[in-house]
C-alpha cells in the first residue's frame, strides 16, 4: 500500500512538472487569441484537466507533451472564437505558428536573458520598450511623458526591436517538434 502510494505520487509529480513548465507560456499563448485573462486561465485549466483524465502524460514523450499541450491551446481557442481553419490565410497561419514556436520555447532562463538584453540598451530606448510592452502604454502617452515626438518613439522602438532580433537571431527559428510517432 505504502509503495503504491509513492508510485502514484511520482505520477502526479510528472504531471506537476509539466504544469510548472508549460502553464505560464500556455497562458500567454491563449492570451494571444482571447482577450480576457479569466478566459485564458479557464482554457489552460481545462486542457490540463483533460490531459490528466486522458492519462496521456503517462505515455507520451516530453517533446510530444509540449506539442500536444500547445496544439490543444490553439485548437481550443480557435473553436471558442468560431474560426474555421479554411478561412484563415497565409498571414494568420505564419503568425500562429511563430507565436506557438515562441511560447513553446519560453522559460525562466530565456526571460532573464531578454530582460538583461533590454537592460543593456540606451536609457531612452529602454524606457520606451518597457513603457510600451511592460506597461501597455500608447506611443503618444510615452512621447508626451518623455517630451519627444511620436515619430522618435516609433523609430527608437523599431531600432530596439531590431537590436533584440539580431541579438537572439540564431535562436529565433527553433521550431516546436510537431511530429509524433505512434
Amino acid at each position, binding site marked *: 500500500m505504502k509503495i503504491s502510494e509513492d508510485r502514484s505520487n511520482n505520477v502526479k509529480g510528472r504531471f506537476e512538472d509539466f504544469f510548472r513548465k508549460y502553464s505560464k507560456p500556455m497562458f500567454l499563448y491563449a492570451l494571444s487569441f482571447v482577450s480576457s485573462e479569466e478566459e485564458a486561465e479557464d482554457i489552460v485549466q481545462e486542457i490540463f484537466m483533460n490531459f*490528466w483524465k486522458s492519462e496521456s502524460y503517462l505515455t507520451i514523450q516530453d517533446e510530444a507533451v509540449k506539442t500536444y499541450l500547445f496544439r490543444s491551446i490553439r485548437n481550443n481557442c480557435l473553436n471558442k472564437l468560431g474560426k474555421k481553419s479554411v478561412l484563415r490565410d497565409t498571414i494568420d497561419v505564419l503568425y500562429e505558428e511563430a507565436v506557438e514556436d515562441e511560447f513553446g520555447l519560453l522559460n525562466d532562463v530565456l526571460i532573464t536573458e531578454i530582460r538583461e538584453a533590454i537592460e543593456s540598451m540606451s536609457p531612452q530606448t529602454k524606457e520606451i520598450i518597457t513603457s510600451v510592452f511592460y506597461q501597455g502604454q500608447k506611443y503618444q502617452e510615452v512621447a508626451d511623458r518623455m517630451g519627444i515626438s511620436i515619430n522618435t518613439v516609433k523609430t527608437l522602438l523599431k531600432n530596439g526591436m531590431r537590436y533584440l532580433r539580431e541579438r537572439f537571431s540564431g535562436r529565433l527559428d527553433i521550431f516546436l517538434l510537431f511530429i509524433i510517432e505512434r
Partner: protein
Amino acid sequence: MTIKENIEELVLEFCSGTISEADRLILKAWIEVSEENRKQFRKMVRVYFRVTAAGKWDELDNVQQKMWKRMQPALGNRHYTYLRIVQIAAVLTLLFLSTCLWFVMRHNSPEKEYTSQEMNLLKAEAGSAKAILKLAHGEEILLGRGESKNIANVQGVELTQDAAGGLFVGQESQDKADVTPVYHTVIVPEGGEYFITLSDGTKVWINSASELSFPLSFSNNEREVILKGEAYFEVAYNAGKPFLVKTAQASVKVLGTSFNVMAYAEDLDVQVALLKGKVSFDVSSGAYILVPGEIAILDKSTGKTTVETGNVEAAVSWKTGVFDYEDMALEELVIKLRRWYGIPFEFKDESCRQLRFSGAVTKYRTLDYMLDMISKTTLVKFVSEDGYISVHTRDK
C-alpha cells in the same frame, strides 16, 4: 521611410491587433513575396511576444498558483497496477535515452556539413504559386504571380492573372452558353500550387502535381470540370446548373458547396472531403451522398467506397499553407513531400514505410527543415543521394 521600416511598424500593429484592413493586405502581400520575408516576419512576431512575455512573467506566478489550487480536487490519488508501473518505467527510460541522444547529436554536429550536391537537394525550397495554362489549341502560357496582367483573350473571354498568383476567367457571356464547351487546362507542377476563379464564380485551389481542365463558358445545363490530382472547390451556387468534378475513377456532383477532391493517379485511393453543403460521390458501384464533416474514400484496388466522419479541415489544410496529417504512414507522407518539394524519396529500410505520424507543419519551410524535424523525434534517417533522398532506420 523605407518599405522595410514601414513593415516593421505594420508587424507591431498586427501583433497588438490594431492593424487596419488595408495595412493588413499590404503586410500579406509583402509576406507572400519571398521566404526571406516570411522568415523576417516570424522573427519580428517572436521578438514581439518575447518582450511582452518578459513584462508579464512575474505576475504569472500568481496565475499559475491559482490554477494549480483549483485543479487539486480533481487530481486525487490513484493506485497503479504493476503493469502500469512497468509502462511508466519504460517511458521514463525512453525519455532519458532520447534526451541523451539529443545531447549527443547536438554536440557532435553543431553545423551539419553537406557536399554541394547534397546541399542542393536538402535546401529544396518549398513550392510556390506557379502553373502552366494550356489552351485548347495547344498554346502554353506560364502562370506565376507578382503582377496583374492579361494572359489571353479567347473568343471574347478575358483571362487575367492577379498579383497574388491566381487566374481569373472573365464573366461568361450569355450568347456563348449554348455552344459545346471547349476545355483548357491549368497544369500545376510538383512544387507548385495555383488558384483559379472560373467564369461562374466558382473558386478552385489546385494542389501540387495536379491538373484542372475547364471551359471558358459552361454549357446550358451543367458545369463540368476534369481533375487529375488534388483540388479544393468552393462552388458558386446555381440550382439550375449542377457542378460536376470528374476524375478517372469517380465524379462529384454538387449545386453549391465547399469540398476537397484528392484523386492522384499514383495514390491507392480517391478521397472527397465535404466542408459545406451536400455532394454526391458517384462511382461505378453507385452514388454516395455526403453531409458536411464526412470523407468518402474509394479504394482503387477493391473498388469499395467507405464514408466516414473525419477531420475535413485537415484534408484542406494544404490550401492554407499547412501540411496537416493524422495517423499517416511515412510512405504516404513522403509522397506529399515529393509533390511539394519536387524531390523523390526511396526507402532503404522497408520497415520505415509503415511508421505512422500525426502533426502539422507549415509548407513554407525548406525540405531539410522538415526532414530534420522528423528525424529528431523518430528513429528515421534521411540521406541525400544522387537525385533523390533515401530513407533509413537509424541505429538505436
